[in-house]
């Protein structure tokens, strides 16, 4: 193990390390903790200039209550759910198929198609912006969740295919050969042999895509406007415009907007990290 395990060092080093850890963490998360503190302060603290002192009263419930009951926030959150969940399902479904095709079969175009997905996944969004917006307008899907979902599915298929294909490549191939010798049809091999083995990859991808899409801002701004279809990332800017200078409410709103992916991360941590670090180890 590198660096040298702390247990094998002197007592002082160990104690120093254990005190340094929480301090480092506090410094690392300071900007976020500041917002968390803001979100439970009463309005009065900001007018009296008590920014960093102890909150004069605890107004957490009132602040968060306001966010949920008196603003469009629940709308935006719901929109985000209706955009994110179908995208996750669509992208994972499409890419388990493409990943299967590229991971199992040998044919001449294989690597080229794979590289098309990989390259497309790295492209800057701006080169797609004008045509995709135009396309969405032409299909009558501008400012709808469907328009956003369709594009997200297509774009995420690039990354997901990269992921799935590499995962399927690492599966034991003799299993598939054995199934073939038994005369099992190819689509049944996909459904009954490969798909069950892909469960960890499906889980990892789902959480990753959930987070990516939930946090998307650019496409939300380009393809939607207004509370009827905008997700929470775009909604938070109009929320902030509505409560300009009401820092306690803006903080509470930001925390609410950030929370779902955070929950997802803590609940599915193992899968999440497995997904992000795929390929980091050979």
């Amino acid at each position, binding site marked *: *193990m*590198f*660096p040298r*395990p702390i247990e094998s060092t002197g007592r002082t080093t160990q104690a120093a*390390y254990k005190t340094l850890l929480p301090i*480092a963490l506090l410094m*690392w*998360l300071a*900007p*976020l903790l*500041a*917002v968390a503190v803001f979100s439970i302060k009463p309005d009065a603290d900001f007018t009296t200039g008590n920014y*960093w002192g102890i909150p004069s009263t605890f107004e957490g419930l009132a602040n968060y209550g306001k966010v949920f009951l008196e603003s469009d926030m629940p709308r935006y959150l719901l929109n985000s759910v209706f955009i994110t969940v179908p995208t996750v399902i669509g992208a994972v479904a*499409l890419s388990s198929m*493409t990943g*299967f*095709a590229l991971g*199992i079969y*040998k*044919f001449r175009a294989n690597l080229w*198609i794979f*590289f098309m997905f*990989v*390259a*497309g996944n790295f*492209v*800057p969004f*701006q*080169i*797609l*912006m*004008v*045509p995709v917006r*135009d*396309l969405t307008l032409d299909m009558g899907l501008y400012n709808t969740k469907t328009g956003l979902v369709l594009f997200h599915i*297509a*774009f995420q298929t*690039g990354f997901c295919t990269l992921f799935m294909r590499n995962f399927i490549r690492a599966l034991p*191939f003799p299993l598939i*050969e054995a199934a*073939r*010798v038994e*005369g099992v049809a*190819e689509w049944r091999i*996909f459904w009954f042999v490969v798909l069950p083995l892909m469960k960890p990859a499906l889980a990892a991808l789902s959480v990753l895509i959930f987070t990516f899409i939930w*946090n998307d*801002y650019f496409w939300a701004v380009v393809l939607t406007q207004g509370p009827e279809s905008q997700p929470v*990332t775009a909604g938070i*800017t109009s929320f902030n415009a509505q409560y300009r200078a009401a820092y306690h409410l803006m903080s509470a709103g*930001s925390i609410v*907007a*950030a929370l779902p*992916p955070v929950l*997802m991360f803590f609940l599915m*941590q193992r899968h999440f990290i497995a997904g*992000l*670090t795929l*390929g*980091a*180890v050979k």
Partner: protein
Amino acid sequence: MSESSLQDVRAVNGGGSWFRRNQIAITPWLFLAPGVLFFIFYVISPIFQSFNVSLYEWDGLGEAEYIGLRNYQDLYWEFVDRDAFFVSLKNNVIWLFLYLLAIPAGLMIALFLNQNVWGIRLYKSLFFFPFVISQVVVGLVFTWFYDPTFGLLNTIIGWVGLGPVNVLGDERLVTYGIIAAGLWPQTAYCMILYLTGLNAVDPEQVEAGRLDGAKGWKMLWHVIIPQLKPATFIAFVVTIIGALRSFDLISIMTQGGPFGSSRVLAFYMFEVALSEYGFRMGYGAAIAVVLFLIMLCFIAYFLWSMWKEEKGAR
């Protein structure tokens, strides 16, 4: 798969319908079709359409007028006159270089956290936390962090007697301020890559290094970092992509200001094509093409590395 087993399979499958006989050749295309068509429709063909749009003067609604390379000529003059395009390009270069700091910073934090003390798993998750949050929220958080009247930054430097700095209002500081905000989640990502990489470091090599008297930096440089190469490669890829995609933070924190000094190509393009500056789709597309060509150098390099690896693998 070996040739002989392929023939076995054919022999078993043979005799059925045409589809059954050619199953192995056809199936991959059936599985690929929906994904590939969708991807071409929404991602690949728009790239070429953007190239095309960049040759027109177009407001997004009316007739598009073909103007050849005039958009690019305008960009050239904006570059020579050190105008918005020059500033955006310059900031993109700054972003590219400074964003790479996330890699060593991530490695440092990973080394710091790669221990086995009580509660370390929670520490690792909490250090990773910033990456999970939306860039929009990161932008808001840092806007308040930098705020000249009550921001945490100014409160802290006030303790040592330094006057308030308005990071986001200062033309010289603003880009660095936004990059610092971007480095926060990016460092967290690099950290998690390296933590995973460190987990897989071969303990025997570390021991062998220790026997040879390698310690500290020497050990890190000659024994550990070479073994972290796959993690470094991925960290490099995601950091470069992230740097060139920087849009959310700029849009949230400064809207490109003050006086356009924090623009990057990604934001400038959006501004030109879709905001109060008017809908100059052709001009925006030309900026996007420039950004794409910069990215293409990196994409080509990534693909080339992957291709070498694929050839080595089979």
